C-alpha cells in the first residue's frame, strides 16, 4: 500500500429477519448515519462512496446503488458497486482501501447491505437454470458434501458443528446488533432437523436484513478524528477457477494464498500469538474448523480440536467470531464487511460486551462463490 489507511468510523444496523420498519434506502441510511456520526463527519466530508452487495435478485432491483445515490450522499461523487458473491462486503471494503491508499481520496464511505426479506432468497440464490442439472439445493446443498469430506479427512466428531453453533449464539447474545441472540445448547442443535446431511438447521446461518458502513481515511484525516482509528495493516482479495481437477474444496488454495499475502504484508509470523481476535466467515458451522486450518491457525485436520478444547471462545486464547459471526447474522451482501468492521471494532476497543480484552491485532475474513473468492484484512490499534 502506497500510504496508510485507517478505519475511522463503523456503523451497523439492527440486523433481523425482516426490517419492516425501513425501506432499502432507510436500511442503508441507518448504517451510513451511524458510521458518519461515529467518525465525527458529515456526508460532505466524504470524497467517494463504494457500495457492495450480493445478487440483485435478492431484492428485485437491478443495480440498486443507482437509486440509492441520494440516500448515501453520493450525489456528484465517484461511486463504484462491487459484487463478489458472499465475500462482497469484504472485497468492497478493500476496494475502498485502494481509494485512500492511492493518495487520490482522503475519506471514503464504504457500505455493504442486503434486504433479502424483500425477495425470495432461496430462489434468488439457486433458480432453475436451463442446460444445468437441477440438483444443487441452495448454498447449503452445495457446501454440505465438502463439509462431509472434511469430516472424513480429519476424523472430526459429529458434535463439533453443534459446539461451534452454540458458541456463536453465546457470543451473539453479547452483540446488540446480531440477528439471532437466543442461546442454544448442544442438544438443541443435535436435535434440530438435518437439512443437507451433514448440516443441521441449528448449524445454518439465518437469512437477515442488514447493512454496515465504514469510513476509511488517510493518516492525516484519521488523526483529526474523535476516535482512535483501526489501522489497516494489510488486505487482499483473490479468486480461483472452479473446475480445476483436484481442486481442494475443503481447504481452497485461494484461501491459503490470500492468508499468506495478508500475513506477509502485515508482518505476521506467529499467527496463533500475534492475532488477538478473528472474525471469519462461517455460514455453516463446520466451516469454522475448516477455515482455522485453511487460515493456518493449526495443522491440517486439527481445526476441530481447537473447537473441542474451547480455545476459540471469548476469554480463551484466540476468540473466533466474538460478534457471533455469520451463524448469528447473515445479510449476504453485508456479512463480509461486518467481519471486517467487527475486527476493526475489536482493535478500537469498542466491541462492547463482546470485546476481546486487550485486542490489538485482528483478522477479518470472508469467502464466496463455490469457495472461490476470498477477501481478508488485518487491522491493528497501532499504526
Amino acid at each position: 500500500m502506497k500510504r496508510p489507511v485507517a478505519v475511522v468510523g463503523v456503523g451497523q444496523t439492527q440486523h433481523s429477519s425482516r426490517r419492516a420498519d425501513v425501506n432499502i434506502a432507510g436500511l442503508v441510511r441507518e448504517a451510513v448515519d451511524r458510521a458518519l456520526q461515529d467518525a465525527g463527519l458529515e456526508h460532505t466530508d466524504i470524497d467517494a462512496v463504494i457500495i457492495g452487495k450480493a445478487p440483485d435478485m435478492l431484492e428485485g432491483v437491478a443495480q440498486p446503488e443507482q437509486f440509492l445515490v441520494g440516500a448515501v450522499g453520493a450525489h456528484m461523487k465517484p461511486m463504484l458497486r462491487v459484487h463478489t458473491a458472499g465475500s462482497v462486503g469484504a472485497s468492497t471494503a478493500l476496494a475502498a482501501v485502494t481509494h485512500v491508499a492511492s493518495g487520490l481520496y482522503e475519506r471514503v464511505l464504504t457500505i455493504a447491505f442486503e434486504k433479502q426479506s424483500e425477495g425470495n432468497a432461496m430462489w434468488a440464490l439457486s433458480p432453475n437454470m436451463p442446460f444445468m442439472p437441477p440438483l444443487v439445493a441452495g448454498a447449503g446443498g452445495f457446501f454440505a458434501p465438502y463439509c462431509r469430506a472434511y469430516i472424513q479427512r480429519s476424523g472430526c466428531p459429529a458434535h463439533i458443528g453443534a459446539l461451534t453453533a452454540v458458541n456463536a449464539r453465546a457470543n451473539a447474545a453479547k452483540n446488540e446488533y446480531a440477528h439471532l441472540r437466543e442461546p442454544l445448547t448442544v442438544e438443541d442443535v443435535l436435535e434440530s432437523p438435518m437439512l443437507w446431511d451433514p448440516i443441521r438447521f441449528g448449524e445454518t446461518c439465518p437469512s437477515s436484513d442488514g447493512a454496515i458502513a465504514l469510513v476509511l481515511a488517510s493518516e492525516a484525516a484519521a488523526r483529526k478524528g474523535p476516535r482512535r482509528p483501526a489501522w489497516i495493516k494489510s488486505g487482499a482479495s483473490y479468486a480461483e477457477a472452479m473446475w480445476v481437477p483436484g481442486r481442494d474444496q475443503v481447504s481452497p488454495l485461494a484461501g491459503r494464498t490470500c492468508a499468506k499475502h495478508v500475513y506477509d504484508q502485515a508482518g505476521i509470523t506467529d499467527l496463533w500469538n500475534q492475532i488477538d481476535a478473528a472474525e471469519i466467515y462461517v455460514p455453516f458451522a463446520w466451516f469454522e474448523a475448516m477455515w482455522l486450518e485453511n487460515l493456518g491457525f493449526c495443522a491440517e485436520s486439527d481445526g476441530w480440536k481447537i473447537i473441542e478444547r474451547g480455545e476459540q471462545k471469548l476469554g480463551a486464547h484466540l476468540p473466533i467470531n466474538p460478534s457471533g459471526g455469520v451463524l448469528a447474522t447473515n445479510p449476504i451482501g453485508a456479512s463480509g464487511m461486518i467481519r471486517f468492521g467487527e475486527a476493526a471494532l475489536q482493535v478500537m476497543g469498542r466491541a462492547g460486551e463482546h470485546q476481546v480484552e486487550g485486542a490489538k491485532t485482528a483478522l477479518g475474513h470472508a469467502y464466496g462463490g463455490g469457495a472461490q473468492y476470498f477477501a481478508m484484512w488485518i487491522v491493528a490499534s497501532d499504526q
Partner: protein
Amino acid sequence: MSSLRNVAIVGFAQLPVVARDLHRTSPEMLYPVVRQALADCGVERDAIDFQIAGSVDYMDGRPFGFVAALDVMGSWPPRLDLHLEMDASFCAYYAWLRMQAGDCDTAIVVGHGKTSEGDPRRVLNLQLDPYYQAPMGLDPVSTAALQASAYMARSGVSDRDLASVAAANRTAGARNPENQLHTAATPDELLKTPWAVEPLRSGYLPPVGETATCMVLAAEGKAESMCDRPVWIQGVDHRTELQTIGARDLTQSASARLAAEQALAMAGLQTASEVDVVELFALTPAEELILCDALGLDAQAARPVRNPSGGPLCGYPIMSTGAIRMAEIFRQLSGRAGARAVPGARRAIAHATQGHCLQHNIIWVLGTDRRWA
C-alpha cells in the same frame, strides 16, 4: 496536482458485436478475447498481476453470472481479483486506481454479457427505484426520450438535427468492421424510421447486441515492452448523480461536466476542444449533444472528431460499450485504426455512462505521451 503513476492501455481485443451469438455462452465468448489480448501484448497470463471483470447479474439472467468467467480468464493459480456490477470502463478505473496505490503493475479488464438473452428494456426498468419510478413502467428508451424531449425544448434542436447526428455515427461506423451496424445511413433515411418513443426514432437507437472484451493496462516500466505505442492515461474522473428523473435538470449532464473538468485538470488541459478525438457513450443523438455541452464542445465543429468508431449506435454490447470507447481511442492513438484513423491524433477523450439519463459518467483523457515526468 502531485505526480501520479503513468499507466497505459497496451492492448485490447473484442469479438465483433453481433445481435446474438448462437454458439457461445457469455464466458465462452470471453475466452478467445482474453487469449488474443495477451497474445497481442506478447505476454503469458502469469505476467498479469490483477484481473477485474464487469457484468450485471440481471443482464445475465442469473445470480452470480460472473463466477463462470473465472474459469475462462486464467484464474489458476488464484489471482488478485475483483468484479463490479458495472461497464468495464469503470472496472478500468479501479484497475488504474490500484496501480496508483502501487498494488499492481499490469491488469486485464474484461466486460461480458449476452444482451440478447434477456429483454434489456424490461430488465433496465428494474434499475429504477422500486417505489415510484419502476412501477411507472419506464424503460431506458422512455427515460432517454424524456431527456431528449426536454433538451429539444430548451435548445431548439430539431428531429432533423438528431437525424444528422445519428447519420454521422452511421457513416463513421460503416468503416469499423467490429460494429453490428456497418452500413451508412443518411439523415433522410433515418427520418423515415418510425418512432420508438417520440421524440426518438428507431433509427436513432442501437439494436440489441453483444460481445466480450478484454483490455490490458500496464504501468510505466511494463507498458513499453507490451505495446509498440502505449496510449497513456493523462487524466480521469467519474461522478454520479441522483437517479430521480424529476429531481434533475435533464437538459444538462452535471456529472459529465464535473467529471470532465476534473479529468481535464488532471491532464493539464483547459478545455476538451484541445483534444483531437472524442468517443462518447451516447445511446441517442440527444445524449450526444448533451454530452458535447457538458464537455464544452461545439457540436458543429470538425475537431475534435467525434465517434470515429460509429459510436454505440452501431454497436451497443452490454458491459463493454464503455470499454470499446477506450478501445477506439487506443486504436486511433496507436496507429491501429486503419482506414478510419484520424490524422495527427495525439490526445483524446473517452467517455462512458451508466444508469438512466446519463446518471453516472466517467471521462478519460488519453494521449500518445506520458503525463507525468
